[in-house]
């Protein structure tokens, strides 16, 4: 299953490192990354492959949200189909 991860918040040292480490611990593969500073906010979008992870979606979501609280950013994860269905015919 593919999912899209979005990380938004105040820029800081170690956000990418912290998120990537957490994803590796969850056995989640990163397929694509884009990162920018938008309106002064750190904004990162990752496309993930969850198929190798032992953890259920709800568990991954919770772990990442908790990690976001530690890193002081908002981390969301949503199934990829939500975005593809909305923005493509």
């Amino acid at each position, binding site marked *: 299953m593919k999912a899209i991860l979005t990380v938004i918040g105040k820029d800081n040292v170690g956000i990418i490192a912290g998120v990537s480490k957490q994803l590796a611990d969850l056995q989640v593969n990163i397929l694509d990354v884009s990162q920018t500073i938008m309106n002064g906010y750190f904004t990162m*979008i990752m496309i993930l492959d969850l198929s190798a992870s032992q953890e259920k979606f709800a568990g991954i979501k919770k772990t990442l949200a908790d990690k976001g609280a530690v890193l002081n950013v908002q981390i969301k994860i*949503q199934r990829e189909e939500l*975005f593809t*269905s909305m923005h493509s015919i």
Partner: protein
Amino acid sequence: METNQVLETIRMIEEEKLDIRTITMGISLLDCIDSDGEKARQKIYDKITRLAKDLVQTGKDIETEFGIPIIHKRISVTPIALIAGASGDEDYTAYAKVLDRAAKETGVNFIGGFSALVQKGYTTGDHRLIQSIPQALAETERVCSSVNVGSTKAGINMDAVAEMGRIVKQTAERTAAEQGLGCAKLVVFANAVEDNPFMAGAFHGVGEGGCILNVGVSGPGVVKRALEKVRGQSFDVVSDTIKKIAFKITRMGQLVGHEASKRLGIPFGIVDLSLAPTPAVGDSVAHILEEIGLDSAGTHGTTAALALLNDAVKKGGVMACSHVGGLSGAFIPVSEDAGMIHAVEAGTLNLQKLEAMTAVCSVGLDMIAIPGDTPAETISAMIADEAAIGVVNNKTTAVRVIPAPGKKVGDTVTFGGLLGHAPVMAVSSSSASAFVARGGRIPAPIHSFKN
């Protein structure tokens, strides 16, 4: 996937209150018919709780994975008049109670289908069901009731119109302690549709399959925000903007509907392309009309703005999903829309204008509080007017008014939650009792010589 598209979707959900308003499981109860009422009710309970046992959990799982809120999980069933009519029971309140129990067991917040279809005439079952409505709605919490009194093919059953005026009054009186809340769960239709996922008017029509899943989308806030970016531009741009955003909203409905039906192992029915407001700030259809250029909803120009909105939502949505159905139009419930409430309180929106608006959108005089001493005949006449608009224009119309006991014009009725609060609106003091007392049927309109 482009960054701005991802962020647009997230912003629509988080800031503009885009949500899936409801996933509604339609369940046929035709195979629960039994000459013994007790047995029929047991079959009804068993069937609903078996088929819908995973509905709420499935909805929650999808919310978690897709990150899109699904506000309601609901059930609609075959009109109970058809089911209970086979039994010897004279009071159908027990059927409503069993639906209520099944709703509580499955965790859905409403179950629709305590209904009768009497557009042309009554069966004994229809009579008994309608007579049971006030008590049934007083004794249950989650049951919704609807009665279809007219259709373009059959005309308007004025006996039923007269009776429903009295039933609405009785329902308000039986639920007086809750300011007539029972009436918020009672809809009088013309041209009722069989696959409507929205309450309180949902029922599972006899032309439907055994069990299906219908989806109702929402998103007035998203439309409003999109229109803010094209202020001052022509109506061509307004229409195109609404179409594009309606496409996106509907795609989400289609996705969630397919996913839910796959997980529940039942066929996917339709997406209802409706803009359903809530009392929350930023989730108002009235505010879209104001964004189009009106100082306040209800002023001159409102009907035209609403007609454009309603049409553009359909045009955008139709291409976005495989099957469109239900009511599919903008809803204009007064108590559930912050902008409508404000317009009524400011004196710019009255019943006459609301009636005109119902000619160009779904669904009718909806969630309107009127004085508690309004005569039953006046309510019947309001129903007749709405039914006439629906029957002549080949569209669904409905009346869901609350004659709030003890309240008069200027008072406010508060229902809470998504039902919101409603300022009590003035009705004409001139009597229509001789008109209503005639009874009989208004013949079906001719659909040629259109002018």
